[in-house]
């Protein structure tokens, strides 16, 4: 019962955070609101017995990635004048909801056909570092390596793209 209440609380928070993200005009507000979503999602993972992912979500996502984003936003020192004028924003939002509704409906129809299962906490090491690590480094070794190469490439790419200095200035 408690877990259910916890779920609804976290769900409400995450949806509110997401709505805040797409409604706030200033990206800083949006980012803060998005952090709320991320943290509540971390709580969801904990409810789903994904213990390692709970930690990773908090440390890597809400911690590292979001602080990077916030850092960049602050670094650019965004003024009101830098922001694009978004006059038809409301119209776009309403139109977007109309367009997206069928997609949501469709997905929901699919989800509804799935068998229901209980979400009680699973013990004996499910979702813990040791077990996830065993799977990751045994059966998912190749994707893992590919992702690591991808990260490296992205790193170098970011340096090359952002690090250009114009000659003569």
């Amino acid at each position, binding site marked *: 019962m408690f877990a259910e209440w916890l779920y609804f609380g976290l769900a409400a928070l995450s949806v509110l955070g997401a709505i805040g993200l797409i409604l706030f005009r200033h990206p800083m507000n949006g980012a803060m609101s998005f952090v709320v979503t991320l943290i509540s999602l971390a709580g969801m993972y904990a409810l789903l017995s994904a213990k390692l992912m709970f930690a990773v979500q908090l440390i890597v996502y809400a911690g590292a990635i979001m602080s990077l984003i916030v850092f960049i936003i602050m670094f650019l020192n965004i003024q009101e004048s830098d922001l694009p004028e978004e006059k038809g924003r409301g119209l776009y939002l309403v139109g*977007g909801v109309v*367009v*997206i*509704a*069928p*997609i949501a409906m*469709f*997905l929901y*129809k699919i989800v509804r*056909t799935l068998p229901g299962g209980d979400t009680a906490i699973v013990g004996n090491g499910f979702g813990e570092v040791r077990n996830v690590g065993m799977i990751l480094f045994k059966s998912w070794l190749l994707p893992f390596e590919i992702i690591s190469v991808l990260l490296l490439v992205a790193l170098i790419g970011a340096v090359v793209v952002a690090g250009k200095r114009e000659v003569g200035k």
Partner: protein
Amino acid sequence: MEQTAHFYLGLIPLMPLIGAVLIGLMHVTTCRGHRFPDKLYAVLACIGPVLACIMAFQVFTILKTLPVEHRILVHKVFTWFSVGELNISMGFMADPLSSLMILFVTFIGSLIHIYSIGYMADDKTYAKFFGYMNLFLGSMLILVLGDGPVVMFVGWEGVGLCSYLLISYYNEDSSNVLAGNKAFIVNRIGDLGFVLGMAFLFWAIGAQGFDYISLKANAHLLPQATAMLVCLLLFVGATGKSAQIPLYVWLPDAMAGPTPVSALIHAATMVTAGVYMVARFSFLYVTVPDAGEIVAWIGILTALVSAIYGMFQDDIKKVLAYSTVSQLGYMFAGVGVAAYSAGIFHVFTHAFFKALLFLGAGSVIYAMHHEQNIWKMGGLKKKLPVTYLTMLVGALALSGCPPFSGFFSKDEILFSAFASGHKAIWAIGVLVAGMTAYYTFRMIFVVFHGEPHSKSSYDHAHEPPPVMTVPLVLLAIGALLAGFFNLPELFGGHQMVSSWLEPSVLDHHAHAEASTEWMVMGSSVLAFVIGFSIAYVKFAKGAQLPVFTGFAKFAYNKFYIDELYDMLFVQPYKSIGAIIWKDFDPNVTDGPRKAISWLYGAIGDAFRLVQTGYVRVYAIYMVIGLSLISLLISQTLN
């Protein structure tokens, strides 16, 4: 033995063609920079024809050893194409007819090549000339040796192309190019007839095989009307290639080319193709005598008309050109009255004396520094003795003086015409024989006798080098003796050529009393004597440039046939073209095209509005599409 012959059969047309390709490549790769010496080209150009000539002789002798009914060798080199019932192989066939043809084609072709070495000596594009000449000879050999109408057509078109290239060889002068165009276009008209004839023939009896042997075997299956149609259409092709009424107009203009080319066109290649073709299809023509009748009449009328033109020309080459047209008329008269071997025999003798006359005329022109008007020559007998004597032999042969070769062949045609009951054709033929003697000796007397009309060029005239005179002498011997190959029984001969050709052509043997034969022969000789005498009286002592009036003027202008054709065909065609160009094309034909292009433009403009360039908008399109798909699939879920 036969294996060797097969081997040679494939090689004979290949020899000049290899030469053509080799010379062409050498010329193309070197014409901008350092050139090979002319002598190298000369040797290369002559090797092919000479080797082909030797091989042709081999094939002939091998064929001769075989029994009469087996004198047919077919060498299929490869399957060319095979579509439905139509299986065409690139095959070559040697039978008495084609072996005789290749024999003199290669022999005379070789002599003309050798002669050209001297004649074209100071030409700038020596190599190009010899390349074309080799190609010309190769095409003619394909035409003659082809084992079916389709292979023949390859050669047929090849000679048409080469004649165009060579007639407009001196292409700095636009009138030469126009002459080349004329030859090509007129030939195309004839070719259309040939193609149509071929198509009808295939449609009717081609299914069992489309080479001469199967066609000959199936000829009896052909309905009379179709046979008539095929014969006439093929004959249209022949009139184009062999310069008969109404398509003879290109041949006199073809004199624009270098003189050896004229010799090649008139003697060994090209114009004889039509006669050869009719003889080759003799198995068709014998089934429809009416077609033969038409062929004979067109032939003899061509002979008459061109003989009239020939009497009034003042260009030495044009006189010879009209004499060729006239002699071709005789040949068609011969094949038309079903005397195929007589026609082919005349082709054979004509090749010698006409090549001789043209090459002689070439020597005269060469000596006179490219002067062709006979009224500016005169008295050249002393300056050019070899040319004079050899040309005299040629002239005697052409005008049918016994015992020169032309006499026998022409007489045989006239005799066949008379004996087969075509007395009118015979009468016209005798008349033309007299006219031939007249204009030939008019030319000889004006050029070689009397006083020189142009002192300066007379003084500079000199006998050409031996490379030119030796072929003349060889041809003169041929022109003198070629007639004896087919000596009629009247003189104790055995008609060797006719009996040789027996298996190939379906000859109609006309028999007559010896007295009739004597009478026919006598009248020919009489016609010659009369023509010669008139020419002697009028021109032997020197003659001045005549002024043409009345009929003579009319004939001098070739009955205004060129102008008539221009008015009847060329101008209306041009005006139709102009209408299509200026009115029909921009308004009617281009209408739908413009509409379609406008439509595409409009659609493009419409789609351009969609392409805003904003990434977000493309994302919106994607989401809209996704949404629609979701809606659609949702219907199927409950």
